[in-house]
């Protein structure tokens, strides 16, 4: 029995994965080697995020949760850095950070190294601080919301909080004007809605991985989150704060790779329907 010859539709439907991956890698590398400079429109969510911080009165204190892991750092790291640029440029705002992710303190160090707070004259312990990774996710959020010093008496390096002037008068959720969370985990992003917004009505800005945005949209619609963004929109934030960095670099690559995906979907469906209408075996 002879081997059935492959039709054009069979070949189109069965491109080897090595070829696909090779095309994908090329579509990543080419725009990185030869940047095109595609424009990046600013979305309403990013603008709302920016305006929320901009409208904070002097003397406000913000709680930031570095709740993302190393896996999410390429997406969320640039957003965290851009927002810190905004806060420090604005001035008069203090930032108390914590982590509900066990990599959060190390990623905080990474973000601060990229940001260089001293360029804005900002000092650790006076203008910003990190009170450390606290296990338990919602337990940690509830505990910190009730009484920070009953939960932890030191910062992430083990230095007593009493030694830092930033912590004067700051001890519970009611002392914070705003909550910001960067996270790769639904437990954290939803947990803050439950433990801080629902309990204390703290305004909440949430930045998650793009793939988590759909599950968080109902909270934004119900007004529980002021602005929900994804780390993929970091480039837009960088444009607003005039500090282009890693976020904006990805714009060309994202455009080309997304067009490739659309092309693959179209090719796959052309092959499928071509085979179907030419009477081929499905």
């Amino acid at each position, binding site marked *: 029995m002879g081997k059935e010859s492959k039709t054009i539709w069979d070949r189109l439907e069965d491109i080897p994965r090595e070829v696909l991956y090779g095309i994908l890698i090329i579509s990543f590398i080419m725009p990185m080697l030869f940047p095109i400079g595609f424009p990046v429109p600013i979305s309403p969510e990013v603008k709302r995020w920016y305006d929320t911080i901009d409208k904070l009165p002097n003397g406000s204190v913000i709680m930031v949760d570095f709740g993302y892991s190393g896996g999410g750092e390429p997406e969320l790291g640039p957003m965290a850095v851009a927002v810190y640029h905004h806060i420090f440029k604005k001035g008069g705002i203090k930032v108390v950070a914590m982590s509900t992710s066990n990599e959060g303190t190390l990623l905080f160090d990474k973000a601060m190294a990229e940001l260089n707070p001293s360029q804005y004259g900002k000092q650790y312990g006076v203008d910003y601080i990190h009170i450390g990774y606290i296990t338990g996710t*919602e337990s940690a959020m509830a505990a910190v919301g009730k009484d920070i010093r009953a939960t932890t008496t030191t910062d992430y390096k083990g230095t007593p909080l009493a030694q830092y002037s930033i912590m004067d008068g700051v001890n519970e959720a009611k002392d914070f004007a705003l909550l910001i969370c960067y996270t790769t985990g639904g437990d954290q992003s939803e947990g803050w809605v439950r433990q801080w917004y629902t309990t204390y009505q703290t305004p909440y800005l949430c930045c998650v991985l793009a793939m988590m945005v759909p599950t968080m949209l109902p909270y934004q619609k119900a007004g529980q989150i002021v602005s929900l963004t994804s780390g993929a929109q970091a480039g837009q934030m960088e444009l607003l704060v005039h500090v282009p960095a890693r976020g904006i670099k990805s714009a060309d690559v994202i455009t080309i790779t997304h067009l490739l995906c659309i092309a693959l979907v179209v090719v796959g469906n052309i092959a499928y329907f071509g085979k179907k209408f030419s009477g081929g075996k499905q």
Partner: protein
Amino acid sequence: MADFATIIQIWLAALFTIWIYSIAFRDNVFFKFAEHTFVGAAAGHSLVMGIDNILRIGWGNFIGGNYIYIIVFILGVLLFTRYHSDYFWVSRFPLAVLVGIGVGLMMRTTITSEFIAQIQSTAGMKLLGVDTWTAFSNLVFIIITLSVVYYFIFTFPKMHGGGLGIISTIAKYGMMAAFGYSFANTVLSRFNMIFGRFDFIMSTWLPLPYAMIALPVALILLIYAMIPAERRPWPKTQK
């Protein structure tokens, strides 16, 4: 120019990156090495952060005068009796405290945040006194929300048959639209992450001395490692 330790760090990170990506093509010994390093690092880091919390928060509170924390430390150690064939039941007590905290914290706010607030928001959507497009969109929103809630609550077949089948159909269409949107966002997320690693390789590693030579060498070794063992000229495998 970065110091020597940083250079080694960048080289290790770059090699691990290339080795992990190689699994997309074929399994190979370099990937297995990187994979086992990852699992070990994850477990080790988790344990280290746990110890840090116990010392910084638990021990800190204990020596600060909260002597009742000794009970917490004992309970924490008792968690590990789970591994004992005869005394595993002892671990149920500390676990019960953890489960009770989790259940209590979840239940008291889920009612408000994920039930009442969502229903209030849906009920507050205007159908009159707004422009036609907004009214239509709000109506579609309400219908899809109610259909999906119906779909998940009434799971017995009778409630999805006959005339009531239209509700399930609307729910399915709504969910398919949501999943299509989720799929596009997942693509965006993953591609952003891949870009992050490629950016590291190209902007941080390749500019280092000898990296441009090391890259093709690493790739050739990888391709060689992907060849099935019996077809490789070296090393010989025992049959």
